[in-house]
């Protein structure tokens, strides 16, 4: 039932809006709304009950294990939320003077400094509001850098075929043409193809390392040399920074610009699809182009650096300074971890992934890159299972929902057929992983014994398989009073 169907004309909550209805003076009649908006007329209890019940239809980290590759679903500590929501932080207006926000700005400044250290970059700006915006900023800086040198010939961005879809989409938004390069047998970027792709038109290369295949690009130093010798810059998609946190710094791998998805490495909540936050780090030569504002610490005071101090800045990406509350949560998480805890993020994410890979392999699942170490994630391919039983990766994913697990990432990266991209994250215990392995074994047996049952999954969720085709062909995107 929709909230609108609970609605009754004239019902309202008296405590939560002004008791007296103020007179609207000074607004000409023709500018006033004629009919009220279609908002529900329900009691406070109706609202609380309705949305509490809706919440219970969701899977979440607080209730389920999410072996969701490339998404890093780790535990979101409660302290990060409650401390970021202290009343003074919530009440602070973004345009309030700097001296009324010294406590908040201290957290932001320290976060910038810590992120510089973990990425090995010369400067950090916290403003991008999500990974894709971090990418946009990064590629825009690459463009600004070339143009500031009078080099307008560089029109191409190179992207491996295993990259996140945001990479090519971002390159296009920055006015570039995308050159896609293939992946070799072992899962690394095809070096011959890279050599052939670079040249005077190369503005840069966008790379995720460890890659979306869950392996570390061994040739990264050589790739860096090739791209730089051709005059291009190296962009690090920091989606998988959690896999190498404290082990290798992107700056040391030769990257010129990087974004960090804070939810993945520093456990800010996914919130059902956002808000994200993606600070960017830059090497020395990109410092003049960083997006503003940035926090500075001078003579014992924190203050904003803006276009005035960074005149070549590529500009602003949000009305204020990005998703401040998300940044606070990441800061709190980092302080709880300390340096030792940060090393352990990579260590235990990697331990969990390799353990799960070893056990699933022993259980009869085919690993896409069996000769390689898993980074924090790895790929199972069900090509063989599909040929033998007709059960697809999607079927297995949906059957996992019945067993109380969120599905792994399916059909990404697209170059591995019938793939499940599996990432356990460091906060899961061996016991949870073992229970998951048992469920995977059960599903494998079911696929042979009762393939039709597996293909009909899920069976126990609030709704069964939904008709996506109908949704797209006859879009029903809003509720209408008559319907």
């Amino acid at each position, binding site marked *: 039932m*929709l909230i609108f169907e609970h609605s009754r004309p004239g019902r*309202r909550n008296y405590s*939560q*809006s*002004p008791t007296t209805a103020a*007179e609207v003076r000074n*607004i000409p009649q023709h500018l006033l*709304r004629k009919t009220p*908006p*279609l908002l*529900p*007329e329900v009691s406070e209890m109706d*609202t609380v009950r309705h*949305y509490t019940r809706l*919440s*219970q239809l*969701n899977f*979440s980290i607080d209730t389920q294990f999410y072996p969701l590759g490339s998404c890093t679903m780790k535990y*979101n500590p409660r302290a990060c939320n409650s*401390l970021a929501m202290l*009343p*003074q932080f919530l*009440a*602070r207006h973004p*345009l*309030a*003077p700097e001296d009324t926000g*010294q*406590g908040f700005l201290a957290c932001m400044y320290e976060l910038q400094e810590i992120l510089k250290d973990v990425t090995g970059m010369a400067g950090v700006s916290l403003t991008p*509001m999500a990974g894709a915006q971090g990418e*946009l900023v990064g590629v825009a800086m690459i463009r600004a850098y070339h143009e500031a040198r009078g080099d307008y010939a560089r029109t191409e961005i190179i992207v491996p075929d295993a990259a996140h*879809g*945001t990479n*090519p*989409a971002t390159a296009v938004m*920055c006015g570039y043409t995308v050159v896609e390069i293939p992946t070799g047998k072992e899962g690394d970027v095809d070096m011959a193809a890279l050599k052939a792709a670079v040249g005077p038109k190369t503005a840069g290369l966008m790379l995720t390392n460890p890659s979306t295949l869950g392996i570390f690009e*061994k040739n990264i130093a050589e790739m860096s040399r090739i791209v730089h010798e051709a005059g291009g810059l190296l962009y690090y998609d920091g989606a998988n920074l959690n896999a190498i946190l404290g082990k290798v710094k992107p700056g*040391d791998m030769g990257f010129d610009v990087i974004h960090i998805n804070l939810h993945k490495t520093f456990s800010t909540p*996914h919130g*059902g*699809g956002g*808000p*994200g936050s993606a600070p960017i780090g830059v090497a020395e030569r990109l410092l003049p182009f960083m997006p503003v504002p940035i926090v500075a610490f001078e003579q014992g005071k924190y203050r904003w650096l803006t276009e005035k101090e960074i005149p070549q800045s590529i500009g602003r990406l949000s009305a*204020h300074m990005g998703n*401040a509350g998300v940044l606070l949560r990441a800061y*709190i998480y980092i302080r709880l*971890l300390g*340096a030792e805890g940060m*090393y352990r993020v990579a260590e*235990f994410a*990697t*331990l969990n992934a390799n*353990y799960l890979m070893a056990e699933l392999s022993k259980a009869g699942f085919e690993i896409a890159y069996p000769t390689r170490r898993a980074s924090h994630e790895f790929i199972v391919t069900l090509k063989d299972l599909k040929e033998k039983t007709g059960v697809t990766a999607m079927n297995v994913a949906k059957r996992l929902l019945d067993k109380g697990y969120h599905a792994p990432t399916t059909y990404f990266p697209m170059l591995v057929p019938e793939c499940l991209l599996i990432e356990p994250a460091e906060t899961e215990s*061996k016991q949870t992983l073992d229970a998951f392995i048992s469920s995977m074994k059960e599903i494998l047996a079911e696929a042979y014994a009762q393939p039709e049952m597996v293909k009909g999954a899920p069976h126990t969720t609030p709704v*069964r398989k939904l008709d*996506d085709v109908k*949704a797209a062909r006859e879009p029903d*995107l*809003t*509720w209408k009073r008559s319907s």
Partner: protein
Amino acid sequence: MPFIPHTEEDISTMLASIGANTIEELFDEIPPALKSGSLKALPGLSEMEISRLMQERAEVDGRYLNFIGAGAYEHHIPAAVWQITTRGEFYSSYTPYQAEASQGTLQLLYEYQTMMASLTGMDVSNASMYDGASALAEAALMAVRSHKSSRRILMPTTVHPIYRRVVRAIVKNQGIEVVEIPYCAECGHTLLESLAPYAGQDIAALVIPQPNFFGVLEPVDALTDWAHDNDALAIGVVNPMALALLTPPGEWGSTGADVAVGEGQPLGIPLSSGGPYFGFMACKQSLVRQMPGRIIGRTTDLDGKTGFVLTLQAREQHIRRSKATSNICTNQGLMVTAATIYMSLLGPEGLRRVAAQSHANTVALVEQLETLKGVKRIFSGPLFHEAAVTLPTPTGAVLQMLKAQGILAGLDLGEHYPELGNALLVCATETKIADDLKKYVEHLGRVLA
């Protein structure tokens, strides 16, 4: 080990299964030369220690009586909003790609889309954008995509100055021209005369703020019709709270604006130093396939039961890659959860009362301020809940002195509109009571005397 549940025994069993001796061995594919740096010393804090640190910092920041608006507005947020929003099932859930495991978030987003479409008077809404400024940039890109030939956007200077910068930063690499349109120095809104030089030219869209940055109401009907007469789209950039009172963009002019965007923060989102907020975007049915961002649709399952899914994904980057409508991947899911609960609690009458009280308070504040010598409202156009006033002495010094009294008296307009002289943008929402207004006026009176 914070947030790591492994016992020593777990670790050794797991390493044995993998066939490795140490955890470090699992990193053996990384070339040793790259493993250069260690992290700077940073002790881990206990929950008690970090709580103390954060509370100290929060107290340093204090609390002020706030009269700043300028795109972020203080409204009362009912207790239920964030108590429900931060339930783990919303807070810690993933993007609803697995529809069967995400019906809570998906149904909520469908309800949100319905509320926003109705509030803006448009046919459809997406599931939200990053914030108001970036939503406006995406609307500009959308207009250019749907227009056959033009890459030019007309942007009144009454649009939030930071929004204008954000639009520029996002669209500049796509060869899009943003032309700024001056405002009427007397009335504070955009005049048709200022658009006249562009009549008959190739234009993708005209942006129409309502209310505008000065809090003044624009002649939206005439501006919308002008855009359509010139084969341009009309993009409304609106305050959703104002729409409880004002004509929604879908009803502007003879056929309505084509796209409505704005900052969703007034709908239950705390000010929190600027974010996270959420942007909203709604449009006419004919433009839905040009709209960026996630969209939720209602459908049925195998048993014919109603359910909700992400739909029209053929527009998006994870399917279309370099041919997507935008590189946008996330929405501001948690913020929209709060906004949906907020709108449900307030309802049409509650929202109207908040808007009306905010309007009344600002009108009252301006009247009282104008009793002070040398303080005067700058523009004659009708206002919603914000006003530009001129001061007899430099704004910065006045703001400093009032801050010392615990009052944030407004935004200095000098940085963005130096031509206005000593000018202040003030806002009094429903959160201000008569005593607050009195306190402000008295202190300002003393400072100016």
